[in-house]
């Protein structure tokens, strides 16, 4: 079980609610590693600290991923604010990912 948590949300962006996300990966798989890197870049560039990201390694918590309805990896779930969204793939399409997460660039 590995959980990566970003630092606490910053008071500066209190106007917009924090983005809560969960990324399902298989840590040994290239697409998963790529997804982690791509998401980290987007977060760093546009969200500063106003987000919460949980990274679930499916190899470690397979039954949890199964219960969560995950099929392929990498798979990113936007949990809040609504609307919820799901993105699959290595998140290489930056603008598409931002659109799905509701991040204005």
């Amino acid at each position, binding site marked *: 079980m590995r959980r990566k948590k970003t630092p606490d949300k910053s008071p500066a962006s209190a106007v917009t609610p924090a983005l809560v996300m969960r990324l399902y990966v298989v840590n040994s*798989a290239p697409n998963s590693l790529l997804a982690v890197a791509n998401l980290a870049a987007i977060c760093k560039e546009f969200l500063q600290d106003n987000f919460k990201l949980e990274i679930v390694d499916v190899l470690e918590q*397979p*039954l949890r*991923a199964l219960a969560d309805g995950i*099929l*392929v990896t990498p*798979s990113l779930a936007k949990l809040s604010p609504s609307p919820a969204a799901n993105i699959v*793939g290595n998140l290489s399409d930056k603008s598409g990912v931002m659109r799905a997460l509701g991040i204005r660039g």
Partner: protein
Amino acid sequence: MNGMKKVTLPLLPKMATGIQGFDELSHGGLTLNRTSLLLGGPGSGKTVFALQTLVNAARRRDEPGIFVAFEETTRQIIANAACFNWGLPALARNKLFFLAAQLSPEVVQSGEFDLSGMLAMLKAKKQEMGARWIVFDGIDVLLTLLQNPIAEMQEIYRIRDWLADNEMNAIVTAKIEGGSSEAVNYGFMQFMMDCVIRLDRRLEHGVSLHRIQITKYRGSDFVAGEYPVSFGPAGMEVGAPEPSEIKHAASTERISAGFERLDMMLGGGLFRGSSTLITGVPGTSKTTLTGKFAEAACRRGERTLFVSFDEGAEPIMRNLASVGIQLRPHVKSGLLRMYSARTESIGAEDHLIKLKALIREHRPRCLVIDPLSAIAKAGGLAAARAVANRIIYMAKDEKVTVMITAISEGDDPQTEATELQISTVADTWIHLSYIVRSGERNRALTIIKSRGTWHSNQVRELVLSEAGPMLADVYTAGGEVLMGTLRWEKETEEKATKKQRRADVDLKQRELQFAEADTRVRIKALELDLQRQRAELALYSRDDEARTLSSSERENELRKMRSADPAGHATLAPANAKPKGANGSGNSGNGKKVRKEAHDAP
């Protein structure tokens, strides 16, 4: 082939799929812990094959399984399978796990993804439930999402490696359009898999036909060629190939063909387990004969299956009741099973499979198929011919006595031979025809052949009445059997002639008796006459003696009186004649004497 089988079997342990017919085709099922690929167009039965294998493994061997559905949701799959008697909802609660692996349309795709996560989850699930089987149903749907041939190949490899690591019996299904594997990776996939099975659905003469073919089976022999597939309550069934060797036991037990006179014509009835073909143009009461056969079987307490094509069971039973054949009570008691099928709905081979299932289910001793020729309507004549033969062989294998009808095109039985060509396979062949003569149409029954038994060669009239079918007495005239009114006339005529003849005989007898009596009377009269004559004769001869004696005495007296010497006797004789005429008395006596002299003279 057998030698090869002996070598390969120990190396490749197989797991039966439990799909009727397929385990025969594949010589035992699918290879243990290997992956089989099912290829086929939409609606060709891939999902049913895969799911049925899982269901059978879970139910029969208590082997849990995982079903990964890329195309359909779990609910859809369970709903679709509800038409089969698998009890899927219950199995889905404990023995089978369904993973609905569809990416929702709302899911945004951004860049490449892979199946490593899914396989990790499935491994965990497998360990949790101890699954022995896994199905990846509709993997093509997943692969198209990858949008990259190289990625597709990578994922296929990933699955293969995963399966190898996890030691599961696996089935992967993929859709192919137009019966050919257009996508490069399907060829690649086929190369990777140990066993490749193709399912096909095509239209032939407007009928949807399902086929199955094993195109590759690594390390195992299998039955090559396409075989028909059909779907029944137990799921998919494959029309497995027939053994080339015929091993039918021949029974000498006779059973009734329906009614006594027909049995008599057949030399005592039909042999148990034999097949009888009844041909005839429409309306020659083929169904009636089969109905009578079925009724007779039920009356003996034998389970019977009555299969009718293109006519419902209800109208058949009603129509048969009008000629005194009651099938309904036997249907109620469960002895008789009526099954009606529309021929166009499915192909000939599907009918065969259905029939097999029915025979397995009902276990009949007697079987009626009316009319078998109807199967030629669906799916072409060649298939129908093969099916017709197989039905007969199948019935023989099961020791079922079968009666089959076939509609012939013309009244000539020879035309039947060109239609389904079952006449050579059938043991007994009865032909029904109309004979039109003197403005009448009458049903005629001929036994064309009956193997291993004496049978009548005569054409007989088949008469239907409320008491059922029967064969009329034979009246022949000019070498032809008379029928209908002609027969009736002949019958009446014969009765009249008989009466006349009897009267004639009576008369003649009486005449002769009279004549005899007359003769007797005459004999009596003559006898009396004879007696009288004899008496008279006797009387006369005595008279004559007396007279002769008296005359000689008188002569002597006369001589004495004339004192004539005895020498004078010589002259006396002529002198004797004189007094005859002279004395006038004793005329008759005189005459007699003359007669006597005349008699003596020569």
